[in-house]
Every structure is written in structure tokens, then in C-alpha cells.
């Protein structure tokens, strides 16, 4: 039950036949030499060409896309996620289906929950328990994971650990209790590289009883960020047997907000908008800002920071959430941008890259009520600090567990191996874009094994056998080894518990917040303090979907 990723892959191989688009190169062990006229080219960064030694190669997996043989125009069009308010004891039917999405004028068969992308925005009160009847009506085995929620273990949706995959046509019942206020999300825990990327994700908003839990805002917006990899009018297929893009994860070239490439919001002058931001992308880390409008940071995965703070931008690794408020003081247009520094490996230079995800248009009508004064005030959340105080005595003790993050490869194309050998002089702490899409595309989970290694035992991934006592506090130190074939940042997610990022590279964190996902940059050491209060078998894994698919997961048992 603990070799989840491999079980998933094996499960997929044994799953009912996929109605998948196939090209001419099936069942070829190792690297396939495709017919370059038939093989699917991938988009390369401007001015960069595919390395000659890689031309004509295709990934060693069978390409597929959802809904092969189905005319997308016969599918119902995706609707925008609607608000679904659930009370304690309510039941929700959540159905994953094929649907039609139109991206830049091109119609595709993709996935959605209840005909929506994102899925329904589920809103509940803190302390509520609801029943969700999941119906899998897509062409892959699936499940629903309630990301960040400290719920009962059997309802975690972690295929291979807490349940078997729900086959196409199958159903599964989840009982979801919400002990913590905050912004959460749900997504499958089977082949996330395909199912989540194709639209199976939605937000959960858990409202606290106190009306002033968050600082006041004129309104609230839930934005789920993701991306898609397209070439002209075509989606780049996925690997049927295992993920492709296994080195870096699939970084899309079409950035999406709530499933659409152009987010739009109209606001009044002086309006304060509270944004709940969720990174639902497979691999991309975002650096968001709002056209220079001031951003106040309120909270993250499981509630509020100790102190509100003004920030120039919001950095979200995959699966992270941040809650911010933005004040649009003057009339005008405020672009929502993702601004990063890409690395051009050809030229050996950084290159600014800015993508506009949407636009906030502010008119001259004054917002009612005027919340400008409150926006300018940065609150200290003493209740958060007081609760954390109980844990401070554990901050300086030696780590209970240590993990090293690394990667092993075998059978990659010679040109990839040669390039990676010489391009090791510098690794950025974070890879914001895919600067080597040709090499990345050709790497599959058959050739790449991402590794969580327990320093104490040398055990790796599914062999790690950690048992901790319920109500214990576990200090976990994670080191992202830069001396590997291709070091990369990893957003590490622990199911079913909450944790604090107490230090980075030995520097204590000054403003704490409870998290379920924490980014570990290349070469960095991150100390996590886990509040192991929820019994059961809980996955610990990298939330880059392709890294998880390439083995990067373990299980922590809270006994």
C-alpha cells in the first residue's frame, strides 16, 4: 500500500482501456525514435531550438489525451465553478466527467467536476462535517484528495495508502470534517499530472466563526492558478503508462486563472478585494502582483499569519495557498501578472518574463464602505501567536527526522546526459520556467526517479517506514541536495497534519503560519515542525505532479 506512485502506474497499466489518442509508437522500451513528421513537437522558448541530438526522439510512453474519439463539440461546455454552500451534515454529489473547454478559440475534451472548471467552490463553516459522494465518470481511475484538511484518514483520497483507485464508472464516499479555518482545495490523487492538469480541481473555503477573522474587505475572489502546455491549436499529449516531463514537471505556456486564460474583474475606486490564491499547476511556481497595487498578506494554507504584512508580490509553489487583500486606490487598469526571471541556457543569461493573467478594471465610483483606513492597518493575530507559543520549545531541539531530496536517472538520451553534465555550474534556487523543454519532454518516470531519502536509514520513498506517536511534535529537516543530476525546488506536502516552517538555512522564520505544503529551494535546508495530531497513514510527497509520479513520496504513520 505504500508504493503509491508505482502502484498507480501499475494500476493504470491494468486499468480498463483508455480511450486515448495514440500515435504510431507504442510499446517501445526505452527511448523511442519517432517519425519526426508524426511525433508531437513541443513549444520551445523564443530563439531556442531543439538540441540536434534530441531531434526525432519521442518520450518512451504512449501519448494520450482524454476523450480520444470523442468530438469535443458533442460534450457539454465547461461552466465556471459555482459557489456551493454546505452546512454541517449536508451531502454533496461530486462527479468527474469529460467536458468541453475552449482555450484561445480551440475546443478540447477535458475534465471537470460537476461540469465546472474549477469544480464547485465549496464553502463550509469551521467545525462542519459533510459527506461527499464521488462519482468517477472519466476514462481514468481517480479519487478525491482534500488537500490540507485534517480529516479522518480513510477519507484522505490517497490512492495506494488510504483507498484503492475509483475505477471509471465507480463511486466512493468521503466524510470530510473541517477543523481549521482557511482556504483548501480538492483534486484527484491518481495521475495528477493528467487529471488535475485537465481540470479536476476546486477550492474549499472554511469560514471561521469570528466575523473579523480576516481584516475587512469589500469582496472576496477565489483564484485557482494553473497552466496548460499547448502547441498552436493542440494540447501536448500526456504519457499513458507514466508521466513524461519527469525532470522538471510539465510547465505550461498558457497560464490560467479559474481555468480561463483571461481573468477579468471590475472594481470601484478604493475597493479592497480579498483574494484567495491557490496554485493548482503541476509544476509552475508563480510570482504574482497586481499592477503595483498594494498587497497585504493575511494568511496561508491553514489560516492566518502571526502578523499581517505588506508584500511586493505573492510567491506560490504548487499546492500552496495565500490569502491577500489588494486595494485598488485609483481608477484604471491593474494587470494581474506573473513576473519571473527565466534562465536562457543558450545565452547563459537571466531574462525577465512577464505573463499577464488578467486585468482588474477600476472605475471612478467610490467603493462603499471605504475600507482604506483598515487596509492600512497591519494587525497582529495574537491568537495565532499564542497557539504557536506552545510549540516554540521544540524549535531548537535536534531534528527527529532528516530527509535528503535528490534524483536518479537511467536511460535518458545521450545529449540530455551530456548537457546536464556540463550545465551544472549554477542552479537557481527556483526554476520558474522550463528552460530545457526538449530534454524535459523526453524524460519519463521510466527513466527518472525522484527521491526522498531518510538520512538515518538510507531508505527511500515508499520504503521509508516512519511511525510517530499521536500528539507528538516532530521536527523534520529537509535538505535539497544540489549535487544531483538535475536539482530542482520541491514543494513538499504532508497530508492530514499541519506544520510550521520554523527555519530556512538555519535562519528562524519571523512570521509563522500553519502550512501543509512548503517549498524547499535547491541547495536549501528547511526545518518543519509537524503537529502530529491526526492518526493514520499520511502521505508526504513532492507536489510537482510528475515528481510524485516518478516516485517522490513516503508515508508517515501517526499511531
Amino acid at each position, binding site marked *: 500500500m505504500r508504493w503509491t506512485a508505482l502502484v498507480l502506474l501499475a494500476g493504470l497499466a491494468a486499468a480498463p482501456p483508455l480511450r486515448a489518442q495514440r500515435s504510431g509508437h507504442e510499446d517501445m522500451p526505452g527511448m523511442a525514435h519517432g517519425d519526426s513528421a508524426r511525433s508531437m513537437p513541443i513549444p520551445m522558448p523564443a530563439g531556442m531550438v531543439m*538540441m*540536434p*541530438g534530441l531531434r526525432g526522439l519521442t518520450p518512451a510512453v504512449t501519448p494520450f489525451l482524454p476523450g480520444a474519439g470523442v468530438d469535443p463539440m458533442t460534450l457539454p461546455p465547461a461552466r465556471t465553478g459555482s459557489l456551493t454552500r454546505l452546512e454541517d451534515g449536508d451531502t454533496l454529489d461530486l462527479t468527474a466527467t469529460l467536458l468541453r473547454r475552449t482555450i484561445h478559440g480551440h475546443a478540447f475534451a477535458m475534465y471537470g467536476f460537476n461540469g465546472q472548471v474549477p469544480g464547485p467552490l465549496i464553502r463550509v463553516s469551521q467545525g462542519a462535517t459533510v459527506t461527499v459522494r464521488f462519482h468517477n465518470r472519466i476514462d481514468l481511475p481517480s479519487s478525491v484528495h482534500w488537500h490540507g484538511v485534517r480529516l479522518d484518514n480513510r477519507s484522505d483520497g490517497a490512492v495506494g495508502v488510504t483507498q484503492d483507485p475509483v475505477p471509471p464508472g465507480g463511486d466512493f464516499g468521503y466524510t470530510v470534517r473541517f477543523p481549521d479555518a482557511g482556504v483548501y482545495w480538492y483534486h484527484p490523487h491518481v495521475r495528477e499530472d493528467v487529471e488535475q492538469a485537465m481540470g479536476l480541481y476546486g477550492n474549499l473555503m472554511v469560514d471561521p466563526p469570528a466575523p473579523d477573522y480576516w481584516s475587512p474587505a469589500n469582496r472576496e475572489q477565489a483564484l485557482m492558478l494553473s497552466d496548460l502546455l499547448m502547441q498552436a491549436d493542440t494540447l501536448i499529449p500526456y504519457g499513458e503508462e507514466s508521466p513524461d516531463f519527469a525532470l522538471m514537471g510539465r510547465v505550461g505556456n498558457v497560464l490560467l486563472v479559474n481555468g480561463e486564460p483571461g481573468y477579468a474583474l471590475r472594481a470601484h475606486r478604493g475597493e479592497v478585494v480579498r483574494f484567495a490564491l491557490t496554485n493548482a499547476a503541476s509544476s509552475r*511556481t508563480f*510570482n504574482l502582483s497586481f499592477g503595483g497595487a498594494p498587497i497585504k*498578506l493575511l494568511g*496561508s494554507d491553514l489560516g492566518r*499569519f502571526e502578523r499581517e504584512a505588506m*508584500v*511586493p*508580490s*505573492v*510567491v506560490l*509553489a504548487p499546492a*500552496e495557498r*495565500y490569502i491577500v487583500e489588494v486595494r485598488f486606490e485609483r481608477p484604471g487598469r491593474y494587470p494581474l501578472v506573473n*513576473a*519571473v*526571471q527565466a*534562465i536562457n*541556457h*543558450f*545565452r*547563459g*543569461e*537571466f531574462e*525577465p*518574463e*512577464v505573463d499577464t493573467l488578467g486585468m482588474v478594471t477600476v472605475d471612478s465610483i467610490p467603493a462603499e464602505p471605504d475600507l482604506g483606513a483598515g487596509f492600512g492597518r497591519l494587525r497582529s493575530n495574537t491568537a495565532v501567536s499564542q497557539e504557536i507559543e506552545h510549540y516554540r520549545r521544540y524549535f531548537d531541539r535536534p531534528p527527529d527526522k532528516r530527509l535528503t531530496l535528490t534524483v536518479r536517472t537511467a536511460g535518458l538520451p*545521450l*545529449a540530455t546526459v*551530456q*548537457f546536464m*553534465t*556540463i*550545465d*551544472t*555550474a*549554477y*542552479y*537557481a*534556487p*527556483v526554476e*520558474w520556467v522550463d528552460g530545457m523543454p526538449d530534454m524535459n519532454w523526453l524524460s519519463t518516470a521510466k527513466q527518472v526517479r525522484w527521491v526522498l531519502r531518510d538520512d538515518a536509514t538510507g531508505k527511500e520513498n515508499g520504503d521509508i517506514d516512519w511511525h510517530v506517536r499521536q500528539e507528538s511534535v516532530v521536527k523534520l529537516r529537509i535538505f535539497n541536495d*544540489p*549535487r544531483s543530476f538535475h536539482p530542482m*525546488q520541491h*514543494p513538499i506536502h504532508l497530508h492530514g497534519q499541519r506544520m510550521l*516552517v520554523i527555519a*530556512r*538555512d538555519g*535562519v528562524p522564520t*519571523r512570521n509563522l*503560519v500553519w502550512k501543509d505544503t512548503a*517549498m*524547499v*529551494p*535547491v*541547495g*536549501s535546508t528547511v526545518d518543519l515542525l509537524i503537529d502530529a495530531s491526526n492518526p493514520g497513514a499520511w502521505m508526504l510527497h513532492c507536489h510537482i505532479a510528475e515528481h510524485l509520479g516518478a516516485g517522490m513520496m513516503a508515508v508517515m504513520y501517526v499511531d
Partner: protein
Amino acid sequence: MTGRIAALAAGLLLLAGPYDIALHPTRAAPDARGEARLYAADSPFGVAVTADGRARYEIRINTRGLPRPDSLGAFRAYVAWATTPDLTRWTRLGPVANGRSTVGPVELNKFLLVISAEPDSAPATHSGPTVLHGTSPSGWLQSFLTHPLFRGISQ
């Protein structure tokens, strides 16, 4: 051959780590020694960056053997600077003395770390003699435009 040299250089760099900067003395202070390490600046996020995505670092510098500044002329302090590789933009990071100093932040993609003797600890511009200098790890980024791999030649 080029690949071997690059691999060797990369290996040597990785021995020091991806956040380390080796500092080299100049003829102004030949006995000076030092090294520096980049630490992410304080941030509520997993990594510290500017709004346009440049990494924000504080720098911990360890130096030994710096002579008294006034032994080099009319100088009273040592100051750390970050400058772009083309030396067109200079940012004063803070004062440095023998032992450990923490300076910053620096917000440049690639930069040279320069320590110079100056008339005071907070000069407006860099003007005194350089005593130690080093290159940010990102300065090791190499251009592969002309590498044989991209001309279809395997090693």
C-alpha cells in the same frame, strides 16, 4: 575538452555550494582572505524575490587579514558593494570588518561582490581601493550557443 573543463569547474564550484562566494584578494591587500554566503532575505514565502522575480539575498561575509583601512590611505572603513557584471550599477550593501559581517539585501540576478576601503562606512559611491572581490554563483551561468552539443556534435 571544453566539456571536461566546464565539468571540472562546475565540480569545484559545487564543492563550495550553490550559495557560496569565494573572495579573492587584490594587490591592495594581498593577505586578505574571505568568503561569503547568500541567505534568502526575510520573506513570508518559500523564497524571497522582488516583484519582477529577482532573488533577494542577505550576505554573510567572513574576512581575515584585512589591514587597518587607514594603512591604505585616507580611509576609515571597509564597505561591501554589489555591482552588475558590467560595473554600471553599484549598490552599497553595508560595512565589513574582520570576522563576520551581514550585509544586504542584494537584488541582482548576477553580481560581483566587492569590498573596498572607503572614507566612511556609508559612502554614497564606491571610490576607494578594492581589497576583496568575488562573483555570485549565478555568474557561473554559461553560454552554450557555440557548444558542440548544439551543433549536433556528441562528445
